[in-house]
């Protein structure tokens, strides 16, 4: 397969397949299995390490994902912010810190699920695939931030136009084909995660009440047999 065909597959065909799957299956699952829209909390089974894994992971990934959306939606404003090196450095260090929080938290989540037999039992193969994807995704994101700074600026310049071209149904892969393989891996895995989203516990982000981000902590326990 030539490089041109491979690029067309990875950055045109795959994104549309993943986005199509995301919208179709998310709606289908909500209509057919509404009660499966849950993160299936395992806090009751093990709560010693739970906090140290889940809290950094969630706050980390929420901020990092929001940052990607901002760069996608308002790239010009972001570039204006970055036009002073100090502001650029503050933004990049903050983004890296939240990326590291995600990685630390996610590693904690995986170690906890491997080390606690009770939690391991309720972990499905889909969960393991998702954890592996997220771990590679977070690792490649941090590597990109370190090896190819400044991501916030080149994302706004190159990735935002590419993503908009996908949304406008006139894909322009020239923005992405010349990127280093680690950045390409990050892009491809992002689309794969979007496509895999409706089949995983990630669906809980669509139904979770917003005040969960700042409410007081509460102890969760299962009601009924498991």
């Amino acid at each position, binding site marked *: 397969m030539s490089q041109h065909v491979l690029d067309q597959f990875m950055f045109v065909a795959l994104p549309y397949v993943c986005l199509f799957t995301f919208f179709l299956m998310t709606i289908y699952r909500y209509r057919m299995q509404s009660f499966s829209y849950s993160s299936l909390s395992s806090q009751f089974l093990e709560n010693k390490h739970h906090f140290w894994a889940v809290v950094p992971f969630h706050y980390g990934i929420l901020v990092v994902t929001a940052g990607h959306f901002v760069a996608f939606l308002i790239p010009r404003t972001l570039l204006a912010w970055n036009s002073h090196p100090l502001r650029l450095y503050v933004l990049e260090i903050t983004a890296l810190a939240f990326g590291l929080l995600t990685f630390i938290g996610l590693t904690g989540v995986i170690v906890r699920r491997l080390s606690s037999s009770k939690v391991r039992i309720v972990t499905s193969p889909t969960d393991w695939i998702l954890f592996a994807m997220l771990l590679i995704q977070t690792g490649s994101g941090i590597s990109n931030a370190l090896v190819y700074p400044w991501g916030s600026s080149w994302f706004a310049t190159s990735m935002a136009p590419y993503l908009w071209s996908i949304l406008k149904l006139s894909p322009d892969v020239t923005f992405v084909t010349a990127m280093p393989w680690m950045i390409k891996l990050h892009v491809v895995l992002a689309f794969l995660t979007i496509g895999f989203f409706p089949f995983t516990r990630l669906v809980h982000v669509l139904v979770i009440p917003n005040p969960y981000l700042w409410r007081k902590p509460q*102890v969760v326990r299962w009601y009924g047999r498991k």
Partner: protein
Amino acid sequence: MSSRQSSRHLLRLQPLCLTLLALCLALLDWLPLGSGTASAQDTPDFFRQYCVSCHTIGGGRLTGPDLKNVLQRQKREWLANFMMDPRGVIDSGDPYALKIFEEARKVPMPNLTGMTRDRVEKLLDLIEAESKLEKSQFKGLQISNKPFTDEDRSQGRELFLGHRRLKKGGTACISCHSVQGLPALGGGRLGPDLTKVYERLKGRKSLSAWLVAPGTETMQPIFKTHPLEPDEIHTLVAFFEAHASEQPASPAVNRVTFLLLGLVLSCTLIFVFDSLWKQRFTGVRRALVEQYTAKKPNSPQEH
């Protein structure tokens, strides 16, 4: 989860995998792979867009060789193959490709999107026709000969850092490039360090021509629609010329500092989370018990 449950779980995904595979194949079928016939009219535009940053026809060498009479120096078939996949020919160890790669100071010609056989033939026809003219329209650009001033260098630095916006909306150089003497964490590293770019591209003329239409695959799509203005090129070249005698900054120091700052902030955030929710278990349970005992004075005390 038992192995039976696991296999049942995976089986449920099977129809989905098959559907996805079918969709991928269908989409691949719709893609315009290698299509597109080049018209004779748009060939000069294509040359202007993608080739003039590195080549002239009769105006002397820039980054790439002067293409005047190139068909007398090399066979048409070889040139066509090289234009369609320059990296592939260089990587194959072809002696002529390696020679021009060395002469271009190891700046490889990029693989251009849309460089079909039809397009290549039309480009070669254009080069052949332009070579016969006394003065080709691609002889070269009118580069400013004004001497550089301190103000030019200062404005070039402001453009590089992004303090001064590029008029057509292009991205500031610092996003992807570094240069010696930048503050704190330095510039970007997606592209090469530009401290020695003035020297690397052999001076004012070549560097200015490069900046008129940057030829790398990463820069091309950005600056195709947001080209630099002549006065911006003048000041940027002045800035790069001033740095030509310096040594490039070490990226390792900046990377380690950046990582350490990120780690410090992430550890601080973990401490903040812990102090915010340090009573997460005792606090919740105690409150529930207190609430229960307040309602029922005779109920048992918390253990």
